[in-house]
């Protein structure tokens, strides 16, 4: 069999064999208006010209920013070994390992990925990965419906808004219902999932719940009462789905330990660059009892006819190409290269290294909290966090824009992420990781203090109404506050020379 492209004679012979005159006839079912005509591309360029064009495009990315943005994707140091191994031709261009005989390397890396995620989550079964954390969460929620034969899922508002939207999209198509569990409004548990509300929602006898989905840490960075939420879910006959951030699993309890049957999350923090939003890595894992419900590829270890260890895709009859409309999902692929990056990262950094990454991030975040509070932006919620939290900033979206102009990416303005929640209107979601430096914190805190002061001076519309936050955030006893007004600009500048910044 020749492996070159089809010749015109090949095509003619094939057309004749199936009895049609031209390839176009194969697309007759598609309405003419929807059929693609020609691809109108610009003329070809030399490699140098093209590289130049792409470089100019890339330069539109801001890579100079001091960034405190998290909200689902996190800056981490990625050792060079990850990229170097990814670039190997055997990995970089390998496709789906349908033929185990010639794909043992690929299959083994997926098996290792599954094994490591199994250790991290405490789960028995890990899929070969999904598109991203949002789709993995949606799939996890759908699993609970299939397993319990119930059609209603409860999702905490502490789960990332994008994940909730994706889940609703999946559920809408499947005629299932996803109801949101509210967050506690005030008190020591403010911002976390409202367990009393959850219990009430679970108690509806006419609308039994298949699964309860809670994220830990939550989108707002808070640690959630997972064990209690799990108990409530189980008491009502529902399954418990935990949405996790993988680096945090080095220091936080594994989902299996607090009773979750399903764990899902975003694997980007494990050695995958931010890359403007993707490609990322959907993690999905479950207990053994749900192995036939979990969608996605599964790689298993077995022996070949000669008794040697071998890896294969296993439990294939679950999958879409065999079960068709009865499959658990239309998924028929995985994020192989990203899963490989995560595996290399985890293997090279090791469990102790990963714990250091998580702990360092937490330590930096504590420094960040102090610095921002002194700058006039105290935390919005009182509860514990790992490395991400919300701070109260008057006129947060405007301050965020102004800080961006000064080269500081001040996290996420929560008003844009959660426009329906007025309590988050004047808040920024910020995070720190092991790569955040004390200098960066100082730059941020100084610039933020300046912006808050200027805001106060200029009396931005509605600012007079925002009494509480400002008063609470007024830095008490911080020596050497920079005077506001033109003097501040002259005396200040960024970073080192600013007084009243973080120490």
């Amino acid at each position, binding site marked *: 069999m020749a492996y070159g492209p089809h010749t015109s004679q090949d095509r003619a012979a094939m057309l004749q064999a199936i009895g049609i005159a031209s390839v176009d006839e194969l697309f007759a079912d598609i309405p003419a208006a929807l059929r693609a005509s020609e691809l109108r591309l610009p003329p070809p360029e030399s490699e140098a010209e093209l590289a130049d064009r792409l470089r100019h495009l890339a330069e539109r990315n801001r890579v100079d920013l001091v960034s405190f943005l998290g909200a689902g994707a996190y800056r981490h140091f990625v050792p060079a070994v990850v990229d170097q191994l990814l670039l190997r031709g055997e990995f970089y261009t390998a496709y789906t390992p349908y033929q185990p005989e010639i794909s043992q390397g690929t299959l083994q890396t997926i098996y290792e990925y599954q094994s490591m995620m199994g250790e991290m989550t405490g789960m028995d079964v890990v899929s070969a990965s999904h598109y991203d954390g949002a789709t993995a969460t949606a799939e996890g929620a759908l699993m609970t419906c299939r397993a319990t034969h119930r059609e209603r899922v409860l999702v905490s508002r502490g789960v990332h808004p994008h994940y909730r939207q994706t889940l609703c999209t999946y559920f809408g198509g499947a005629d299932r219902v996803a109801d949101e569990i509210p967050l506690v409004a005030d008190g020591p548990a403010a911002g976390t999932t409202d367990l009393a509300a959850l219990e009430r929602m679970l108690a509806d006898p006419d609308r039994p719940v298949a699964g309860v989905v809670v994220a830990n840490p939550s989108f707002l960075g808070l640690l959630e009462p997972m064990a209690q939420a799990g108990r409530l879910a189980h008491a009502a006959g529902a399954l418990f789905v935990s949405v996790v951030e993988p680096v945090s699993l080095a220091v936080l309890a594994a989902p299996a330990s607090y009773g979750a049957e399903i764990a899902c999350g975003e694997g980007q923090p494990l050695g995958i660059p931010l890359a403007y939003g993707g490609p990322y890595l959907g993690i999905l894992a479950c207990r053994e009892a749900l192995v*036939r419900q979990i969608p996605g590829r599964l790689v298993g270890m077995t022996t070949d006819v000669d008794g040697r260890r071998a890896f294969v895709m296993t439990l*294939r*009859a679950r999958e879409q190409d*065999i*079960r068709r409309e009865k499959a658990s999902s239309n998924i028929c692929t995985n994020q192989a290269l990203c899963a490989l990056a995560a595996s290399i990262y985890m293997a090279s950094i090791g469990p102790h290294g990963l714990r250091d990454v998580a702990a360092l991030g937490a330590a930096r975040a504590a420094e960040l909290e102090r610095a921002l509070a002194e700058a006039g932006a105290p935390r919005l919620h009182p509860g514990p966090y790992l490395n991400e939290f919300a701070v109260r900033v008057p006129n947060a979206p405007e301050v965020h824009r102004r800080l961006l102009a000064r080269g500081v990416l001040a996290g996420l303005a929560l008003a844009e992420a959660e426009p329906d929640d007025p309590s988050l209107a004047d808040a920024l979601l910020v995070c720190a990781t092991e790569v955040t430096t004390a200098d960066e914190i100082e730059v941020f805190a100084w610039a933020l203090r300046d912006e808050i002061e200027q805001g106060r001076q200029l009396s931005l519309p509605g600012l007079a109404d925002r009494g509480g936050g400002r008063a609470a955030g007024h830095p008490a006893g911080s020596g050497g506050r920079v005077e506001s007004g033109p003097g501040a600009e002259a005396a200040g500048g960024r970073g080192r020379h600013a007084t009243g910044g973080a120490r």
Partner: protein
Amino acid sequence: MAQDQRYTKEHEWVRVEGDLAIVGITDYAAHQLGDIVFVELPEIGRVLTQFAAVGVVESVKAVSDLFAPISGEVVETNAELAARPELVNGDPFGQGWMLRIRIADKSQVDGLLDQAAYEQLTREG
């Protein structure tokens, strides 16, 4: 194959034991499917409607629905099949049985294919 067995067009077999019916799939079906690795059966207590898809038989290469040959309540399922699905291949009419159903309407059994009709079906198949 016992003479008192009845069959469906989807290759299930039925034997009557008093007011209960035992159900499984035929050797023809098992052979078509290949090595069976998993059998998903309806839970005890579930009320089945004749010819509805009530379970799944999964082999290494394919997945096939299990259809209820008659209406009735599931009173017992073969627990052995969880650990030993290969019983369906090895002894489809004996140890590979799948369900015991409390017959809702005895006439439904009479309406199924008899031995000769089923053999005809598999010859043509």
